[in-house]
């Protein structure tokens, strides 16, 4: 059969790895995968353009209402855990920021690295497009619902942040755990490094679950795929993709 998966770019690496593995096991299944963002994933479930909608946040009340209006009942599956880690350019000397400092940087109150103990230089704030799940979580947990300055560069994906931060000496951004790599440097939050361990034990403050939504209780290939992700083997892939497995 055919399986259409859409949504969060954070969940994308997991979904893609799982899809490749699943298709290898079930050659008759054809999976197509789109990114776009968490909002897109949930939207696709509601208007039936996808079988599975990925989201890096939980469904919002508004979206639930919209779904109910159309007699759709989205069913969430938590497939992984994730931490959102602030990242800076590799050359940056700063390696620890408090939640307060992060908030002030993203509010535009702190504009120079010297204000947070780094070598002087303008801070280039990089953020995600406003409807991404990662942004939503960042906004809830770091910004406490206040607004990111309009002058922040926006990029469409976690990968985009990695790339922009890697190329820009004064940059700061935030990405899901799975996207950390050698090109960029992760920053501790309130003294706690963003790692799998710290996320699981609750000490890292910017953490979230990653979800796959279906339209009603899944059946057929959809069910097969979700079961696969939630299996031992699937969670192995979650780990490979850089996120935190559920077990």
């Amino acid at each position, binding site marked *: 059969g055919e399986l259409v998966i859409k949504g969060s770019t954070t969940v994308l690496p997991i979904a893609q790895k799982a899809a490749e593995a699943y298709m290898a096991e079930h050659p008759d299944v054809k999976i197509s995968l789109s*990114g*776009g963002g968490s909002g897109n994933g949930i939207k696709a479930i509601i208007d039936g353009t996808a079988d599975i909608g990925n989201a890096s946040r939980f469904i919002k009340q508004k979206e639930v209402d*919209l779904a109910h209006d159309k007699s759709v009942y989205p069913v969430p599956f938590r497939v992984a855990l994730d931490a959102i880690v602030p990242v800076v350019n590799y050359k940056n000397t700063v390696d620890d920021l408090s939640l307060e400092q992060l908030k002030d940087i993203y509010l535009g109150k702190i504009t120079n690295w010297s204000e947070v103990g780094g070598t002087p230089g303008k801070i280039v704030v990089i953020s995600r497009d406003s*409807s991404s799940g990662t942004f939503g979580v960042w906004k809830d947990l770091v910004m406490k619902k206040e607004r990111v300055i*309009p*002058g922040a560069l*926006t990029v469409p994906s976690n990968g985009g942040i990695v790339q922009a931060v890697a190329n*820009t000496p004064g940059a700061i951004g935030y990405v899901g755990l799975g996207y950390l790599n050698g090109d960029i440097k992760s920053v501790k939050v309130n003294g706690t490094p963003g790692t799998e361990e710290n996320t699981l034990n609750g000490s890292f403050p910017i953490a979230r679950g990653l979800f796959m939504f279906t339209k009603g209780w899944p059946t057929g290939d959809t069910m097969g795929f979700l079961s696969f992700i939630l299996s031992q083997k699937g969670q192995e892939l979650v780990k490979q993709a850089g996120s935190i497995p559920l077990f």
Partner: protein
Amino acid sequence: MLKRQHIDKTVQSGFLLIALFSITALFLIMVFLFIEGIPILEHISIKEFVFGKFWYPTDDPADFGILSLILGSVCVTLLSGLMAVPLGIMTAVYLAEIASPRVAEIVKPIVELMASMPSVVIGFFGMVVVAPFIQKLFNIPVGLNMFNASLMLAFMAIPTICSISEDAVFSVPTALKEASFALGATHFETIAKVIIPASLSGICTAVILGLSRAIGETMVVLMAAGGAAMIPSSIFDPVRPLPASIAAEMAEAPFRSEHYHALFAIGIVLFAFTFVFNLIADYISYKFRQVGEASL
């Protein structure tokens, strides 16, 4: 035997019907933009929409002010025009007047190739090659900014400007050119005083259409402009032009949500911009169209 003539009439009506398709398509585009865009006015007035300074479409309550996006588009377009217009026109004059036929035969396809260079490749180039380069060159915080985007847009606008101006310059009647030469004017004087004035309407059309192309271009500004929804204060500020906002956010806006409607409303604004540009271009080329040899 009269059957043939009846077929003829039928065929003609068939062609007319098909010819109306373009209009229908344009009309449908407008209709759908409006159907999906107008509902945003239930939440916000036109004035707040167009002149609002803040674009926070997913906040609760959300802000749907697109002034910064409009200004982003306008600034990027003007800056790119500053680069593309002189280059495009000069190349056009070179091709039509100076280049030997053999050179022109080589350069013209190059201009055509420029026109068909996929925008995503140009955006990609701006993002990965030009951005780091200008960041180092000008020692600025980020290379993804208005200047970068304008540069790339100029590349996209030049072929349009060049080929339409070239047509205009080329179609200046030889009789006028020869008249000027026969009076002992140099080629340069002939170009400056006779040919350019005579082809001015065509050149204006070219410029307007080139800018129209620049303002509507999506991938370049999506990838190279930086995407910050703020009113720029220097050419090295990142901006978020209208098409980039639509492209970046459409995928993520829940179906028929306020945000979704707001993005269609941006589509209306963008459409309006290019529509007006095209009307002006159409007006100029219609009003000043060349009739016969001795008129403008």
